[in-house]
């Protein structure tokens, strides 16, 4: 057995990390945070030039064909560096939806463009506040000529201003389905939706009988499948951010002196950081298992995805929050980077639904299995 990344994958990670340390500095993140630009184009272009977006896509669609484990590694490093680019929206959401639900023609049309970065995609999931069941979606679709038109308002949409194409859940006469909608058409209006984390801008997209194409495999199950798979990928992005904030806190605890001692020698700080580290390793373990199910299409993917997402969402917020606390006053300043993780952690934990929704998703998955839990260690002792 080998329940860890391979040497090749770790080498890919090192290269990615080196590149991002140099090219995705805090100044780059802040250039998006403090402006109206939807993402950092220079960084995005460099990353696309290296082929990262297509790392898991088959070669026939312009990808590198490496696999999902490699994509997880990339996600972790992008999360660590707070990369202000539409990578996850385009690849975890749009490309996944097209891979899972698209016809051969749809795949052939869109995947190469997404892999190369020529087009940016997203999933227009949200319809305002609340964890309403996906099937209660308010957007509607109907036939128009040989195609469809979609009408409705979606907000917030991650990278909604950056995207060229959106996968849009909308109801038609058969129930919920997924539609591909190009965003540069008259039936689409969009505006920036100010976000809790302005370094990952969101949009509000109004569809008024916008021309749309129906994804070939396109129902609630497809949507759920796409979201489950995205959850695993996002969980690695979250993991990277969590580790970055924890490392920032640990470094400060060694450097900062109070009462004549490094503050990390005080148990109040030391034990807090040790506890976070342990929690992070537990969360990481669930992410790894998720990655394995993703790479093997294992039947336990739905539970594994929920475990990865719930753990990673929680630990990223905890690490970001306590990183600020360890820093004290300076951590609470705009100029210091700790709040970037605080903001990012909340946006990533909301983007495909929050904890309330995912807890329910997990329990339903377990109910379907009638609780054959993953382990048999689970007995009273």
């Amino acid at each position, binding site marked *: 057995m080998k329940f860890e990344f391979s040497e090749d994958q770790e080498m890919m990670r090192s290269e990615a990390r080196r590149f991002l340390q140099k090219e995705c500095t805090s100044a780059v993140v802040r250039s998006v945070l403090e402006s109206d630009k939807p993402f950092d184009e220079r960084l995005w272009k460099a990353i696309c030039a290296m082929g990262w977006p297509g790392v898991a896509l088959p070669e026939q669609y312009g990808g590198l064909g490496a696999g999902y484990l490699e994509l997880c590694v990339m996600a972790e490093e992008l999360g660590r560096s707070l990369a202000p680019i539409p990578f996850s929206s385009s690849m975890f959401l749009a490309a996944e939806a097209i891979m899972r639900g698209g016809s051969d023609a749809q795949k052939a049309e869109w995947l190469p463009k997404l892999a190369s970065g020529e087009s940016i995609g997203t999933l227009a*999931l*949200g*319809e*305002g*506040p*609340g*964890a*309403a*069941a996906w099937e*209660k979606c308010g957007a509607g679709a109907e036939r128009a000529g040989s195609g469809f038109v979609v009408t409705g308002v979606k*907000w*917030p949409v991650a990278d909604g201003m950056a995207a060229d194409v959106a996968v849009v859940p909308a109801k038609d006469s058969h129930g919920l389905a997924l539609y591909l909608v190009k965003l540069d058409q008259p039936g689409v209006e969009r505006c920036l*939706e*100010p*976000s*809790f*984390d302005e370094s990952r801008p*969101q949009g*509000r997209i109004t569809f008024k009988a916008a021309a749309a194409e129906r994804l070939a495999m396109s129902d609630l199950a497809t949507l759920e499948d796409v979201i489950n798979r995205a959850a695993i990928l996002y969980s690695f992005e979250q993991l990277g951010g969590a580790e970055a904030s924890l490392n920032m806190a640990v470094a400060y605890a*060694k*450097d900062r*002196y*109070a*009462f*004549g*001692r*490094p503050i990390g020698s*005080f148990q*109040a*700080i030391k034990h807090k950081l040790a506890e976070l580290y342990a929690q992070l390793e537990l969360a990481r373990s669930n992410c790894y298992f998720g990655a394995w199910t993703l790479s093997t299409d294992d039947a336990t993917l739905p539970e594994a995805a929920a475990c990865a997402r719930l753990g990673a969402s929680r630990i990223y*917020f905890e690490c970001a*929050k306590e990183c*600020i*606390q360890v820093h*004290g*006053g*300076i*951590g*609470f*300043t*705009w*100029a*210091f980077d*700790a*709040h970037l993780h*605080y903001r990012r952690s*909340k*946006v990533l*934990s*909301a*983007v*495909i*639904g*929050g*904890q*309330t*929704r995912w*807890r*329910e998703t997990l329990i339903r998955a377990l109910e379907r299995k009638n609780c054959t839990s993953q382990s048999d260690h689970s007995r009273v002792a």
Partner: protein
Amino acid sequence: MNFDDTPEQAQFRAEARAWIASNKISFGSVKGGGFAAIREWQRIKQKGGWGCLHWPKKYGGRDATTIQNVIFSQEEEAAGVSMLSIANSITIGMAAATIMHCGTDQQKQKHLPRIATGEEIWCQLFSEPVAGSDLAGIKTRAIKDGDEWVVTGQKVWTSYAQYADWAILVTRSDPTVPKHKGLTYFLLDMKSPGVEVRPIKQASGGSDFNEVFLDGVRIPDSNRVGDVGDGWRVALTTLMNERATIAGVYPTNFDDVWKIAKQTPLGEGRAIEDGAVRALLADWYVWHCGLKNFGLRIQSTLSQGRTPGPEASCSKLLLGAQRQAFLSEAMDLLDVGGTALESGSEMGLHFAFLRVIGNRIEGGSDEVLRNIIGERVLGLPVEPRVDKDTPFDQVPTSRRD
């Protein structure tokens, strides 16, 4: 147990209420708003005899009891003018209290009347980038030069420095003795040459605080409070009053989350129909009432003529981290939509969720408060100190030392 005023208290309350009703102003009603209004409200109050209730008569007060002070504050709050007074609490509660306890007669004569009438607004120059929780570790240097002191250094986390006429200031006058013994305390005219105020932008976007740079600022020795080297004792007097000042204002956001739970969709219905959300609301309400009722116990202590001790820090300790955790849950209820500004701003939720970060740090961090409660309330022993008896300039302050 009862929540009734005594007849004397009831009469005092009635007078206060009547006076406030016929004299009150608002931020909007004074030209310039902000501190202009705050100064004006203080002036009006003092003119009516309500400005510095608990001060001795000779300084313009009326020797009021603590509970009378509390009653007046309650009536200010009921009349919606409390924000006009709270912003002045550093001046009245900390600077004036310190001058009253430790100042010279000359200092009292000079400042107290002008504080009473709102002519002087004060700020507090204590914390430094290198000295937050470890306040006695400050480095701002004061060097005696004839009848004056020359002060150079950097202070931080100073509220209202941009509006203040004067400041209370702690400096290091002797770095060769142990840290608590080489401090000296001054009153600083903020218009002195060499004082520069720069706002700090917070993670939450606003600027409640400032950095204050002191570059060769000259302070006459007559503005020194307490003896040379006795600044720590004077600073403790100020801090004791700070805790009393901070206690009591506890935004718990319970009404906000209740509203969110009723309005927000969840599954097939509304969030408030879900068991997990109901459990969250229940825990939130228990905490909300706990803080409120704890506050009533502190009020009761005051009302009985006693002074609350360090145990009053309990509510400050239980405010920040819990409020942050709850607000995080509230954000989560909004799900995908929770990060969009509209859902946030409607409730002030995003701002609260960012501002709460500061609750755990400002006015005594959670860690400092746990030390205080552990040591001063429960009587647990202090940690071994490596810095206490060492000359300050030999105490390690970085890995290089």
